[in-house]
C-alpha cells in the first residue's frame, strides 16, 4: 500500500477516531457484504472509469482473501476511449473476473436503437442495460453513482428499488434508516446499489492516491487532438467529430470523467501525477459534471428523466 497524500494531523477527539476515508471505506465494504449476504445474482457495473475502478477495489478488499462473489457488466457505447477498454480487459483478466458486455453498437446494427442526431450515445445505454439485467436475472446492480454529482442524485438511496422496467420512482424509494438496508423486492424487480453514495470527487481521488490504485492514462495530462463543441474539448474520432466549422488542435488536456467520447469533455491541465490531479480538483471552481459532461446540460431535469427510465 502506498500513501502519497499525507493529511496534516488534526486534533482527533480520541485514539479511536477514523479518518473520513476510513469511514467511507468501511461503509462501502459493509454495503458490498450486505448485498453478498442477501442477493442471489449481484453484478458490478464496470466501465473502466475511476468510480467503477474504486468500486471494484473496495469489493476486492471486502471479500479478501476469497474472490469477489460478483460478475461485472459493462454497457459499451461503442464510443469508448481505447485506453479505457484496454484497461478494463486487463483488470478483468488480472483478477480472474467474469465480464458481461452489453453493446449499444449491436443494438444500433440490429435496428433496435437509432443514432441520435447529436451523436451522443449515453442516453442509448438504458435499453441495453435493462435488457441485460432481465436476461441475466441480476437482482442487485452496483453502480458508482455519487450523491454529490447532481441534484437528482442527491435524492438517491444506497439501495434504490427499480421495477421490472428498471424505472426509478423517487416517491417509491424506501426510507434509509440507520445502516439497515432493505433489499427485499418482488420477482422481476431489482435493486441498484450505490456503495459510493457518500463519497465526493475529492474523496475518490484521495482514496485512489492512498491505495495506490492504477488508472487509465487519460485521467492524467497528455497531448491530444481535440476540438471545441458547446464549450468543451472533445476528442476527434469517427464517432462524429469534428464537424464542419470545428477545427482540431493539439492541446495539453486530461479527463476528469470518462464516458462516451461524444459527450465527455476534457479540461486543460498539466497534472501528470495523482498529487497534481488532486490539487487541481481541490482548487477547481467547477463541478466534475459541469466541467465535462454535455449530456447533463441538456435540460435542468435531464438526469431525473433518464433515471426514471432506468438509467444508472
Amino acid at each position, binding site marked *: 500500500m502506498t500513501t502519497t497524500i499525507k493529511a496534516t494531523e488534526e486534533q482527533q477527539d480520541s485514539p479511536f477516531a477514523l479518518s473520513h476515508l476510513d469511514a467511507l471505506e468501511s461503509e462501502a465494504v459493509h454495503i458490498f457484504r450486505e448485498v453478498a449476504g442477501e442477493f442471489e445474482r449481484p453484478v458490478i457495473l464496470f466501465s473502466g472509469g475511476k468510480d467503477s475502478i474504486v468500486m471494484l477495489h473496495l469489493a476486492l478488499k471486502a471479500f479478501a482473501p476469497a474472490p469477489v462473489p460478483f460478475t461485472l457488466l459493462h454497457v459499451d457505447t461503442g464510443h469508448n476511449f481505447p485506453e479505457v477498454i484496454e484497461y478494463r480487459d486487463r483488470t478483468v483478466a488480472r483478477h480472474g473476473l467474469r465480464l458481461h458486455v452489453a453493446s449499444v453498437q449491436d443494438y444500433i446494427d440490429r435496428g433496435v436503437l437509432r443514432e441520435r442526431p447529436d451523436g451522443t450515445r449515453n442516453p442509448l445505454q438504458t435499453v441495453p442495460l435493462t435488457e441485460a439485467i432481465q436476461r441475466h436475472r441480476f437482482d442487485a446492480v452496483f453502480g458508482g453513482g455519487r450523491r454529490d454529482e447532481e441534484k437528482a442524485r442527491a435524492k438517491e438511496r444506497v439501495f434504490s428499488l427499480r421495477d421490472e422496467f428498471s424505472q426509478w420512482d423517487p416517491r417509491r424509494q424506501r426510507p434509509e434508516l*440507520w445502516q439497515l438496508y432493505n433489499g427485499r423486492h418482488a420477482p422481476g424487480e431489482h435493486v441498484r446499489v450505490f456503495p459510493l453514495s457518500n463519497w465526493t470527487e475529492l474523496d475518490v481521488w484521495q482514496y485512489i492516491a492512498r491505495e495506490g490504485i492504477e488508472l487509465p492514462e487519460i485521467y492524467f495530462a497528455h497531448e491530444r487532438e481535440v476540438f471545441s463543441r458547446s464549450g468543451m474539448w472533445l476528442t476527434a474520432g469517427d464517432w462524429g467529430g469534428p464537424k464542419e466549422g470545428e477545427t482540431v488542435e493539439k492541446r495539453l488536456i486530461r479527463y476528469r470523467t470518462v464516458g462516451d467520447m461524444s459527450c465527455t469533455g476534457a479540461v486543460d491541465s498539466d497534472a501528470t501525477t495523482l498529487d497534481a490531479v488532486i490539487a487541481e480538483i481541490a482548487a477547481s471552481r467547477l463541478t466534475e459534471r459541469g466541467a465535462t459532461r454535455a449530456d447533463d446540460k441538456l435540460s435542468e431535469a435531464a438526469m*431525473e428523466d433518464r433515471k426514471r427510465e432506468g438509467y444508472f
Partner: protein
Amino acid sequence: MSSTTAAEQLSATTLLRFATAGSVDDGKSTLVGRLLHDSKSVLTDQLEAVEHASRSRGQEAPDLALLTDGLRAEREQGITIDVAYRYFATARRRFILADTPGHVQYTRNMVTGASTAELTVILVDARNGVVEQTRRHAAIAALLRVPHVVLAVNKMDLVGYEEGVFARIAEEFTAYATELGVPEVTAIPISALAGDNVVEPSATMDWYGGPTVLEHLETVPVSHDLTGCHARLPVQYVIRPQTAEHPDYRGYAGQIAAGTFRVGQEVTVLPSGRTSRISGIDLLGTAVDIAWTPQSVTLLLEDDIDISRGDLIVPSGDAPATSQDVEATVCHVADRPLTVGQRVLLKHTTRTVKAIVKEIPSRLTLDDLSQHAEPGELVANDIGTVRVRTAEPLALDAYADSRRTGSFLLIDPADGTTLAAGMAGESFATERPAGPAAGADDAGWDF
C-alpha cells in the same frame, strides 16, 4: 476559516453526519444554501444555474434555496420530497448533511435523517419562538438519541437582533429538550438571509459570544467514546476462500456496530451461545490487534464453530439477553397502516425473522407527548409503542445503549415495503412526566 483553500480541504480528516429540521417558512433552505455558499462549497456552475433560475423567476438576488431544490415535481410544486444528501468540507472537517423537508411527511423524513446523524440543527423563527413543530422536532431528536442538538434561532434581523428575544426562546427550548433527555443543546442566534452567525460571526449581535453554526459543526466531538459501550459484531458474511493458498481460512465478516474487539478476547456467539476466542482480526487486508466501531473487519476464531450471517459476536460476559418478545417504540413510515395481528418481517442488524404484531399499547402525540391507549393501528408518521413476537430469538440491545443494535425495521413480507422504524426499550431517556433534568453526561449513550 471562512474560505476553503485547496490545501485546507485536503487536510480535513474527520467526518460529521448531521441533519436539519425545520420548515421552508423557518428559512431552512436558505440556511443550508448559506452554509454551502459561505463555506465556498458551491461551485461556479452550480451558482450560475441558481442565478439563471432566480432571474427567470424574476428574483433580483440569487435565491440560495434553489441550490437544494432537486426534482422537477418539487420545483413545480415548491415542495421538497424526501431526504436529500449534501456534501461539503471546510479546512477542519468533511460533512454529510441529511436535509429533511419540513412539510407534512416530515416525521418519517426527520426520523430517517436523524437515524444516522450525530447532530441535528433545529430551526425556529425568532418571531414565533418555540411552536408545536419545534417541540415535535425536539421529541424526534430525543427519541432517535441524536447526541448533539443545535437550536438555530433564525430571522433575528426581523426582531431587531434583540438579545432578550433569543434568550427567551433558547431557555424555553433547552428546558423542554433537557426534560426529554437530550444530552446537549447549543442555541445560536442567526440570520440565514443576512448571513449572521451561519459561517461568519455577526457584526450586529455582539452580545453573543458563542460559535457560529459552522464553527460549532467543525468542533463538536465526533463521538468515539467507546469505553462505556458493549462490543457488538453482527456477522454479515462468512469468508471461506477454499483455495490452495487458504485451504482452512474461515473469517466472519462484519462492521463493528459498537465497542472494540481485541485478539485473544473470549467471545460468545448469539443466539447459539457457543464460545471461542479471537485468534486474529483482519482489517481489510491488514492484521491488527484491536478494532473498533465503525470499522469493517473479518474476525478469525480459535475454534471451528457453526456461525452464519445473522449471528451476533459479543464479548463473553457482556451479551444482550435473547428474546422472542420485543417491546419497542416505532415510527410508522409506510402509507398502509400497521395493525394488531399483522404478520411482518423484522430486520435487526444482519438478521431478518418472521414476526407478528401482538399489541399496539399506545400512540404518542408529539405535540404534547400525550399517550393514547390501544389505538388499534398506526398510520404513516405515527409514533407508538408495539409488542412484537418473533419466530426466532433475537439478541436485541436497548436502543438507549446502542443505536445500531437496538434498532430494527418492520417489513411487509408481501412486497418488501419498509413499514416501520423500531427502537427497542424505553422511548425517552427520562420517564415522563419529567422530574428533575437528567444529567447531561449520561454514560449509557452510544453514538
